[in-house]
């Protein structure tokens, strides 16, 4: 058995092909999203009867007259065929764009979503700032909810019917039913305003500036958001564990003489976690695109709040930017979940 020592890699061409196929699918999906987003903001108003000048009027002050609007619409390219406009939109995102605003040309580096109507700032750098906040919030909360949600679910499943199980599932039911603007305000009023233990909301310090301050500002939003999602994870994990622990292969693992802890973690949890991984990827992707309610409740300057402000002010470039970025996060989260799935479950690789 000379071949015993050499470990055969698990069919690299199949794995590679799987990765490439998923990547292509993700790119295609991004293309579709960009078309739909562009269509919503530039094509549908036309269908509703808006002229090129009407579109241009969103870019200039209310005092502009007909002639000025026509000049503006021409500069923005609203008289060009739609596919040319779409091409320009995508080119701006991929390569950057030059804006000819009268005497000077302004360079908007890639990815260019244009300039805010209100603040005149380019959208992308603002978005990056907001992403840092939302990213800090989402990742911190994710760590908490996975740790607590999954471990609570496992313990509940292993001690099904115990007092711990009942209390945990009761709390989890409360967690999934209570909206964050309620739990958020409650925790704020208790921990910030009465006990002065946490930041009162509305403040954010970048981690690069002061990590302790960063955590202090975010700890309450993390816990509140994590509680909401951990509750769902606890219930899911409990159901998954109860199902897997009844599988035949768990009995086989016990028949081998494995210690119970190994049976639970290596054989039970490994299988029960597969659906959790899927949902985790989607939840995280969704949150990275903006945790609207959490950010609003705690007045955090993140993507969600940015999106709301943009919509309220009818600030088109910002809405476009936030939509595209949010969609990108979800698509990439899906991609990562798909790839992870193949790592976790060998049966997926062949299909």
């Amino acid at each position, binding site marked *: 058995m000379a071949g*015993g020592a050499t470990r055969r890699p698990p069919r690299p061409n199949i794995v590679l092909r799987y990765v490439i196929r998923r990547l292509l699918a993700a790119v295609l999906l991004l293309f579709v999203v960009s078309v739909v987003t562009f269509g919503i903001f530039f094509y549908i108003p036309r269908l509703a009867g808006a002229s090129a000048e009407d579109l241009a009027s969103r870019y200039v002050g209310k005092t502009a007259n007909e002639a000025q609007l026509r000049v503006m619409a021409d500069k923005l390219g609203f008289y060009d065929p739609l596919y040319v406009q779409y091409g320009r939109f995508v080119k701006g995102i991929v390569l950057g764009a030059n804006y000819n605003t009268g005497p000077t040309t302004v360079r908007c580096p890639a990815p260019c979503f244009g300039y805010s109507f209100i603040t005149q700032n380019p959208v992308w750098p603002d978005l990056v700032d907001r992403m840092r906040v939302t990213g800090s919030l989402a990742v911190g909360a994710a760590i908490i909810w996975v740790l607590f949600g999954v471990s609570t679910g496992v313990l509940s499943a292993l001690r099904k019917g115990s007092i711990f199980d009942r209390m945990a599932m009761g709390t989890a039911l409360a967690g999934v039913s209570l909206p964050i603007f309620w739990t958020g305000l409650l925790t704020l009023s208790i921990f910030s305003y009465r006990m002065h233990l946490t930041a009162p909301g509305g403040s954010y310090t970048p981690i690069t500036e002061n990590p302790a301050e960063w955590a202090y500002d975010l700890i309450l939003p993390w816990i509140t958001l994590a509680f909401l999602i951990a509750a769902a994870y606890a219930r899911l994990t409990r159901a998954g564990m109860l199902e897997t622990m009844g599988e*035949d*292969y768990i009995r086989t693992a016990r028949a*081998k003489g494995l210690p119970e802890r190994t049976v639970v973690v290596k054989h039970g949890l*490994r299988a029960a976690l597969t659906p959790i991984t899927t949902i985790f990827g989607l939840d995280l992707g969704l949150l990275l695109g903006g945790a609207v309610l959490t950010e609003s409740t705690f007045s955090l300057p993140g993507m969600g709040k940015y999106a709301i402000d943009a919509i309220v002010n009818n600030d088109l470039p910002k809405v476009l930017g936030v939509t595209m970025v949010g969609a990108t996060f979800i698509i990439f989260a899906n991609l990562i979940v798909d790839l992870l799935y193949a790592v976790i479950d060998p049966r997926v690789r062949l299909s």
Partner: protein
Amino acid sequence: MTALPQLAVTRADAPTRFLEVRGLRVHFPTDDGLVKSVDGVSFGLERRRTLGIVGESGSGKSVTSLAIMGLHKGGSARISGEIWLDGQELVAADQETVRLLRGRKMAMIFQDPLSSMHPYYSIGAQIVEAYRIHHNVSKQVARRHAIELLDRVGIPQPAKRVNDYPHQFSGGMRQRAMIAMALSNNPELLIADEPTTALDVTVQAQILDLIRDLQEEYGSAVIIITHDLGVVAELADDIFVMYGGKAVEYGTAADLFARPEHPYTWGLLGSMPRMDRDVRDRLIPIKGSPPSLITLPSGCAFHPRCPYAELDGIPCKTVVPTLGEGDRHGVACHIPPPKRRELFATDIAPHL
């Protein structure tokens, strides 16, 4: 094989046989009542011998085997009686003691190899795991051992297939791999729970041959659990017929096939298809369905389905029949032995 530490105290009444089960009861409390899956079962087995436990679904045969393996421990089951394995009592032993015996001294092959193997781990990894719990060896050594085992159970290109996952194996190959896994620690007791039920007929004989060859090679005691009398005819030295959680007939395979005495055994034999029988002859099914294990019929649990119940005023509905102690051929039936033999010769044998 290194000697196992004798953790349990050996008692004065310890049996001399390798495996001895005495008065085993396995009861499960449920909301509907107490399920008496196994209710007072005794049997013994020597090394190098094969015992076939036969019965319908729900007769308690699988529960008995899981009890020997200690797989009911820690659950809701109430177990009483004695299980002696090589001079060590297992029912009263603590979980850790039995766990260390599991997979090493006694191993089990399960019915459906697809659902019994973890879908996320390669065949090799699962065998390596089984070996390394009981042997402190490196992964490379365990892996070589796994490849040797796969080779021994007849898997072609074992060095390659060791990396495959269960879903990449055919049903028969999977059961071979399952057997390799069970044999990884040279168990002295091998329990095969319906090892061929989930397999194609063509593969069944191969697997049975393999089990028999391996038994000769390793010298283990084998318990084969099945509802298929053809399987025990192939393998077993002794046969133990269970019905409703109790033993109804016990004897050597030769005796049981040539001179069965319990009406339930007759029913099992009558409902077994045979190649040497005329195709126009109908199989004779056992009427009715297996009893509820919560409320067993009074007296002999088989009486509602027995064509000879209350024959000549015997108390089938009131008195529980017993196997009889020390007999080589035990029959738990109220019909007097001469009458049983006569009934078999006149009523049953002509139709088999």
